[in-house]
């Protein structure tokens, strides 16, 4: 009788321990995959063409050249004079861009720009992923006066 009781207790304890460890491992894996999603960003690609600036706006054509929908962009800009307050600027623009689609974009800006950066934003499982590794940078030589 005692052997059966001990055996039952061992089985019950192992079952509890197994369930607990599986739960822990699953929650950690989910947390890690929530924090980083390099595979999704590998399917993202944008191209920026025909960029030029006027005194108040920056104009460009943005194309989605890959297979995943782009939901928007972080638009970062750097001015010419480092001492000015708006030397560094950053805004989020939400424009849905389907694969193969091109959008003609006109954005307001302050002063002349020496560099712009566009970081694509995608949505997966209701969460925004900022694909920094797919950032497109345009330097001063590519930002001519329109």
């Amino acid at each position, binding site marked *: 009788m005692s052997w059966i009781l001990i055996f039952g207790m061992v089985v019950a304890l192992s079952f509890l321990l197994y369930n607990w460890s599986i739960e822990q491992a699953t929650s950690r894996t989910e947390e890690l995959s929530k924090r980083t999603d390099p595979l999704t960003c590998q399917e993202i690609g944008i191209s920026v063409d025909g960029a030029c600036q006027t005194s108040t706006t920056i104009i460009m054509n943005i194309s989605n050249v890959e297979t995943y929908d782009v939901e928007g962009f972080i638009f*970062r800009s750097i001015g010419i004079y480092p001492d000015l307050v708006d030397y560094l600027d950053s805004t989020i623009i939400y424009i849905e861009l389907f694969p193969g689609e091109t959008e003609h974009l006109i954005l307001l800006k302050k002063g002349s720009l020496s560099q712009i950066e566009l*970081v694509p934003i995608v949505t997966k499982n209701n969460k925004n992923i900022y694909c*920094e590794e797919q950032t497109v940078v345009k330097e001063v030589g590519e930002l001519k006066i329109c």
Partner: protein
Amino acid sequence: MLTKKGVSPLIATVLLLVFALTLGGIVMNFTQTSTIELRDKASDKMERGLTCSLDLDLEILEIGSREYICYNRTGSDGFGLNNLEVIVQNSGSANAEGIRVFILDYNERPTTVDDLTPLGAHNRTKYNLNITKTDDTSNFEFPPSKIIISPIIKHTRESVDICSDNRIEIEEIYDCDEI
């Protein structure tokens, strides 16, 4: 011979049972509390580790293939400030409360400066740090030979929590007039 009466076997069993259950309850409660405390501590450490390694990604901003970090002196005749200008970009999804800058001067003398200007997620911040007064007794000499920048993730009066595994090390620092 045996004149004294003891408790009946039934009451003794019940007493023992109550005693065992109470003791079991106390031990279980104690272990549960300490286990939860331990789990929370481990979870906090893990959370901090994940924030440091995955959610913060610092680099010096590059403009025209040159990193924006430079030194300058203000004032003249030995009265002024030794400044360091740097733009730090955070490509990660966590915010930093500021940066800690460790500097070795031209003669390898160390100085540490904290700047609590926030560095937001997916954003950039320009820091203009006053390292030393040029007329003070520290004999700090520009140009710096090495700079290490680390993000501050939590800053209180008592402590500063720094992500040292996410630091940036720079050994080539130019005069701001050259940039």
